[in-house]
């Protein structure tokens, strides 16, 4: 029986989701006086984890070195559907999860 990440509920799961999906806030606030456009505030705000930010191409602060090995690893990793631990995508597909041993085609081995 395969249960999907049983213990991840509550705050942790919520946070993971928010960070992974990212949050975008787009707001315009206008204050008119008569026909005069008195005050107009525009806000475009986005909040995301590093991985998501990199995926959707957000700007990082100036001076960030985008060539460290961690950046290259980021895109190649995939989390196991059973234990939730991350490993290289090819390894997960070809040899199964190195953490819990999950394999989507166990019959061949």
């Amino acid at each position, binding site marked *: 029986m395969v249960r999907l990440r049983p213990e991840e509920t509550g705050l942790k799961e919520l946070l993971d989701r928010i960070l992974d999906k990212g949050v975008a806030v787009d707001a315009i606030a206008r204050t008119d006086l008569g026909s005069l456009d008195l005050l107009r505030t525009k806000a475009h705000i986005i909040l995301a984890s590093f991985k998501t930010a990199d995926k959707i191409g957000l700007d990082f602060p100036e001076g*960030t070195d985008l060539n460290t090995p961690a950046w290259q690893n980021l895109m190649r990793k995939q989390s196991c559907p059973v234990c939730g631990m991350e490993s290289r995508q090819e390894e997960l597909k070809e040899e199964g999860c190195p953490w819990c041993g999950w394999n989507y085609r166990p019959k061949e081995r």
Partner: protein
Amino acid sequence: MELQTKGKVKTMENTPLMPEKDSSGLADAIDRILDKGLVINADITIDVAGVELLGIKIRAALASFETAAKYGLEFPSGTNIETAAWKDAMIEKEECPQCSKRVDREELLNTACPWCGWESAKAKKRKAMKVGAKIEVQ
């Protein structure tokens, strides 16, 4: 036996040595954010009577020292990044599923957790292959 979930591994063997990991709670949430890193980008403009008065552009990244070092964020001038702790931060680490200690990822995956002895499926497979080879030789 092989197909264990993270939660089940904890109760599998040597039960008395088991520190219970609380997976929800504020401390864990903060750990998570700092570990994954958070990017906050914002463009805010304020117009008064059709004239752009104030424009704010924020590019912020929030992360733990380790994560910041790994992703090459710039540190304030004067920070000495040649210390041993910074070099240690560049080694990829992973939390042991059993004892929750952060250890060298390669070691955890290929041999065992140096703290509690937990073995990954990959390490077990390797061990089994080695034993098999020995038996063949004999």
